[in-house]
């Protein structure tokens, strides 16, 4: 009997990606909600002693942490078959493309998004500018790959799309916090096609919090940070 648990907190973008990957693969798993405020549980500290953070996948008692590592593990441990879809394309080159964009999304886009939420002053202004630039970079990336979409590589979801799923509920929060609008479909057609396609998927809806919950959450978080950490968190 297989036991799969995902340690997560509702607002974690990295946990959203892991939850989506598990659902795409049709894997039954238990969502274990960790404390979003200190103290961290023993369970979390034991299963991720190096980073002490969510998400952590626990498969038959063995922990895997760091979201991109978890995503690659999910692909390998439940390999593609007649009944199980793949999260990575077949060719080495296409796999490298998907990995490249997943890495860009995690290291740049999501990091910028987190700064937009948690920082103030000049850092916030920079994050506001960068998040739009990075949105455009992804649009250009999708166009350079040359498929019709709706996903990065074409008509199948891969790691890059899974990594970007937090944008679906986050978009209204970014626009509210930064007081801006992302470029319209006329300028960024592929990105909007991607957003439209992802929003419709039941697996996505199940793996992310509702956009207005997140809007409320980020507004409250930001007030809390402004009060306790005026420099930003």
């Amino acid at each position, binding site marked *: 009997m297989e036991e799969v648990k995902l340690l997560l907190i509702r607002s974690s973008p990295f946990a959203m990606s892991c939850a989506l990957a598990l659902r795409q693969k049709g894997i039954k798993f238990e969502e274990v909600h960790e404390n979003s405020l200190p103290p961290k549980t023993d369970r979390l500290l034991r299963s991720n002693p*190096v980073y002490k953070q969510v998400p952590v996948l626990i*498969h038959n008692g*063995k922990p*895997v*942490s*760091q979201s*991109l*590592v*978890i995503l*690659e*593990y999910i692909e*390998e*441990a439940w390999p593609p078959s007649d009944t199980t879809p793949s999260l990575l394309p077949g060719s*080495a*080159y296409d*796999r*490298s493309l998907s*990995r*490249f964009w997943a*890495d*860009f999304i995690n290291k740049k886009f999501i990091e910028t998004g987190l700064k937009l939420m948690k920082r103030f002053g000049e850092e916030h202004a920079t994050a506001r500018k960068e998040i739009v630039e990075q949105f455009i*970079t992804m649009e*250009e*990336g999708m166009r*350079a790959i040359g498929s019709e979409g709706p996903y990065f590589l074409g008509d199948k979801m891969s790691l890059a799309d899974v990594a970007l799923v937090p944008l679906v509920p986050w978009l209204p929060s970014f626009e509210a916090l930064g007081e801006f609008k992302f470029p319209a479909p006329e300028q960024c057609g592929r990105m909007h096609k991607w957003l439209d396609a992802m929003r419709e998927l039941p697996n996505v809806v199940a793996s992310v919090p509702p956009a207005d919950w997140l809007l409320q959450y980020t507004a409250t978080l930001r007030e809390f940070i402004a009060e306790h950490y005026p420099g930003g968190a």
Partner: protein
Amino acid sequence: MEGCGEDGQVKLLGVAYSPFVVRVRIALALKGIHYELIEENIQNKSELLLQSNPVHKKIPVLIHNGKSVCESMIIVQYIEEKWEKKAPNVVPKDPYDQSIARFWVAFIDDKFIPSILGVFKGEGEEKQKAVEESVANLVLLEEALSGKGYFGGDEIGLVDVALGGLLATVQTIERVTDSVIIDTQKLPLLSTWVHKFCKAEGVKEVLPDPAKLFEFLSEIRAKFTSPPTGN
């Protein structure tokens, strides 16, 4: 023509002293793949580099039959998968072992490299803190190595390539900043691994010239540290 044969046309855009380029060169050497090394001028990036890595504009970039692959460890995995049938295989077969290898590769990039950069750029107390952090990071890697010859077991694996590519740079940073990071007392297993790795086939041929690397890094460090007091 160099870099064009049964493996196709393989070009590597890079600079000999970059640890990220060294990682890729190790991976290519292990598989015996012939390639053309195109030396870039970082101060004056070529059109080819800007076109083949428009997002980051950084080396290394592997161009295989005209298609570009960027980011050193993504390139290493590409090499592994494209030439899967050529030994050695640096990525473990077992999914869980794979996840452990990928975890440590990410740790090296996300934690160890920034701490090393902290040593390189820091002075006084800041530098000391960065040295302590770097050593603490290596202690975790030492534990991951435990009783094995290489991180990959009996043969060089993904983590060996990821960390090994950085060695010449780390050793040079130690000299340039007068610090000890690969402390033989605190890191006995890792110190042994360093000696073993640097002598391995495929590795020793692609390690940067220590004297040139020392000169290069000294020049850069001089730019952001204060000159000695009293002249």
